């Protein structure tokens, strides 16, 4: 029995922050609200560091059981936390990036109403996210899963007076319901098959289950993961989620919550790896999403939407990694992506802040010299996502692509093409925002963001530059650390497929993907700086294709016509007008009318006349005596 690490402290601190700010925040000063929220997250991060130091070396999972949560027949779910190296990585990302974004938010939200509400929700989100990561059973994980969905809904609709924000929140919630439905079915099937929902028990019994059942469980879990991580065909909610404040986009819709799906697949690796079909589906969906979202990102004009599609695309990479058995590569990319995508979002937020709310790339330009710190940090983030060595994105993306190549060169080809597109769209956004002629409205006073926002940017930039070291075997060994992939090895065990391609091939692949990234950057430079007239001409030449991509392949319209409208019609003309109004209301109102009629007759007895009451008493007494004497009779 290892000594208790008091893991409960990690989620409990943000929960306490949520309760204090949520209940009393209205009466506290802004300074106090900020102090409470930031202290909660900072302490949580420090405790995570302590836990990390204590558990760094151990290969066995550490389980802390607190109490029995549900006991019903064969179902026995404990409220317990499960800590292994995968959990540690996630904990560090969630609390670390979470703490940085909290600091940034204090500056970004300074002028906003509902300040305490924002921080209360942000802390609530962290609580649920940490619960999700620490859970020791699928059911407890599901509680966190739903909780982060709720916080996401609350924060997307933070500016609830704006109809589009409220609608985006609804959309996110409803689309996620579809995924959660799959997740629930997966859990039911898991319980029927294994008789437990506990990680340890399920994974120990998984090899004995029939292959078809395992495939079904894995695919149902994948439906849940695709909903949460915005993969095809359930990605539609994430771009709309950009209606929320930018720190929310950075924390929830880039760095942490949307990676929960990847975490779920990695966590359930022992199940997935037993079903080659499910693995192929994971890889296929991941790669298709990565490519598809990258093409949509090419033509978006809203800086946050570009980053949103980029997030979907990068999540696709992580799914691709899991699908080809490179779980630790997927988690590595999750970590580096959390750094550079949070950086890009926060830098974009800083741009928006400095332009007094402008998000349209067509009304930016030439900002490099006017907001230099934001410019440099955004550039670092862009280089990192484009896979330029030696920044973080380079290492993780290369590891994924090498694994993909081993599975099939076709996967690598499409992955490298996506890397090219990624570099192109992110540098398109960069050039449009920071270089070239200024297209900013002259009445806007452009100003650099305060240090409370630029310092977090610098921290994330540092992580985006150096974050790759933890995963690259050569660099990590030189620093005296275990490379992430090797370190995560015991978590995935036999589920992970080791990389067997020759070193020379690996280097060649590396060169190819770096070349793809550089080509993307060069093309973006050529099209938006060197020859800005080229874009419209190309668009005119492409015609229909351009329109389709520009309108996001009409996916929202198709979903609307195929799914939303029939449901709406069914609801209106059957469920509402017939079932609800005629049947249910009819039955309820019918009962009401019946008893009202009875009362109408009986009310005449109550006249208020004392003597008539006495008469009724006498009649009653006579009736009782008659009953006793004639019917009962001793």
């Amino acid at each position, binding site marked *: 029995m290892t000594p208790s690490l008091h893991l409960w402290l990690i989620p409990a601190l943000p929960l306490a922050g949520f309760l204090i700010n949520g209940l009393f925040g209205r009466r506290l000063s802004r300074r106090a609200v900020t102090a409470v929220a930031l202290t909660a997250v900072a302490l949580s991060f420090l405790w995570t560091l302590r836990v990390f130091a204590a558990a760094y070396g151990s290969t066995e999972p550490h389980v802390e059981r607190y109490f029995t949560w549900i006991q019903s027949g064969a179902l026995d779910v404990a409220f317990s936390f499960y800590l292994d190296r995968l959990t540690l990585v996630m904990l560090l990302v969630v609390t670390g990036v979470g703490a940085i974004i909290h600091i940034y938010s204090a500056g970004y939200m300074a002028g906003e109403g509902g300040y305490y509400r924002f921080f209360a929700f942000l802390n609530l989100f962290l609580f649920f996210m940490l619960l999700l990561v620490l859970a020791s059973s699928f059911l407890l994980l599901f509680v966190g899963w739903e909780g982060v969905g709720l916080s996401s809904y609350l924060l997307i609709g933070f500016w609830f007076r704006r109809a589009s924000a409220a609608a985006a929140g609804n959309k996110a919630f409803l689309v996620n319901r579809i995924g959660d439905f799959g997740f629930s079915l997966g859990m039911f099937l898991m319980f029927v098959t294994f008789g437990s929902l506990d990680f340890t028990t399920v994974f120990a019994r998984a090899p004995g289950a029939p292959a078809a059942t395992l495939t079904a469980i894995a695919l149902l879990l994948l439906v849940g993961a695709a909903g949460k991580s915005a993969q095809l065909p359930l990605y539609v909610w994430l771009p709309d989620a950009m209606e929320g404040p930018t720190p929310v986009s950075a924390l929830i819709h880039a760095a942490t919550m949307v990676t929960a799906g990847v975490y779920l697949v990695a966590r359930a690796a022992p199940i997935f790896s037993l079903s080659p079909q499910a693995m192929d589906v994971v890889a296929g969906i991941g790669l298709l999403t990565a490519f598809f979202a990258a093409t949509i990102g090419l033509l978006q004009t809203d800086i946050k939407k570009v980053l949103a599609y980029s997030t979907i695309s990068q999540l696709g990479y992580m799914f691709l990694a899991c699908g080809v058995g490179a779980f630790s590569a997927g988690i590595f990319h999750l970590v580096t992506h959390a750094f550079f995508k949070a950086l890009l979002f926060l830098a974009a937020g800083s741009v928006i802040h400095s332009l007094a709310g402008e998000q349209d790339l067509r009304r930016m330009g030439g900002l490099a010299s006017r907001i230099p710190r934001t410019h440099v940090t955004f550039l670092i983030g862009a280089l990192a996502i484009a896979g330029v060595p030696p920044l973080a994105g380079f290492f993780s993306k290369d590891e994924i692509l090498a694994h993909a190549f081993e599975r099939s060169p076709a996967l690598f080809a499409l992955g490298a093409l996506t890397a090219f597109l990624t570099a192109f769209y992110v540098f398109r956004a960069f050039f449009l925002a920071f270089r070239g002629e200024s297209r900013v409205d002259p009445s806007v006073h452009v100003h650099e963001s305060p240090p409370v926002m630029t310092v977090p940017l610098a921290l994330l930039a540092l992580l985006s530059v150096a974050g790759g070291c933890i995963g690259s075997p050569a660099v990590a060994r030189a620093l005296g650390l275990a490379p992430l992939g090797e370190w995560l090895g015991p978590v995935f065990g036999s589920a992970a497929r080791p990389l067997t391609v020759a070193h020379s091939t690996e280097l060649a692949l590396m060169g190819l993907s770096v070349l793809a990234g550089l080509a993307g950057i060069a093309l973006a430079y050529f099209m938006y700086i060197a020859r800005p007239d080229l874009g419209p001409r190309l668009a005119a030449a492409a015609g229909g294709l351009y329109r389709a991509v520009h309108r996001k392949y009409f996916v929202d319209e198709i979903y609307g016509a195929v799914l939303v409208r029939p449901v709406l019609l069914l609801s209106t003309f059957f469920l509402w007008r017939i079932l609800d109004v005629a049947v249910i209301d009819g039955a309820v109102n019918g009962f009401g009318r019946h008893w009202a009629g009875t009362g109408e007759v009986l009310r005449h007895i109550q006249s208020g006349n*004392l*003597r008539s009451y*006495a008469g009724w008493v*006498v009649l009653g007494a006579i009736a009782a005596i008659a009953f006793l004497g004639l019917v009962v009779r001793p």
Partner: protein
Amino acid sequence: MVPLSWYLVLSAVLFALGVAGFLFKRNIITIFMSIELMLNAVNLSFVAFAYHWRQIGGHIFVFFVIVVAAAEAAVGLAIIIAIFRSRRTLNVDDLETLKL
């Protein structure tokens, strides 16, 4: 020796007179007296049974009833006076506020 049945018949007649008075009189005082008549009709049958069966319980019950009746008279008359002061009438048919 008067047989038990005579007492019971007398008790029943007195009780019936009390009920009739309660139902048909309109003056509250009369109604109140009718109630006392019913109580005492019951007392009479209690005493008669107690004597007949040589049981002390009936006598004890009668004392309780008398005490309760005295208390009731005190409270009831006070209520009647209060009603008269506010309504200037003792006719029960004019007092219909019971249905509120």
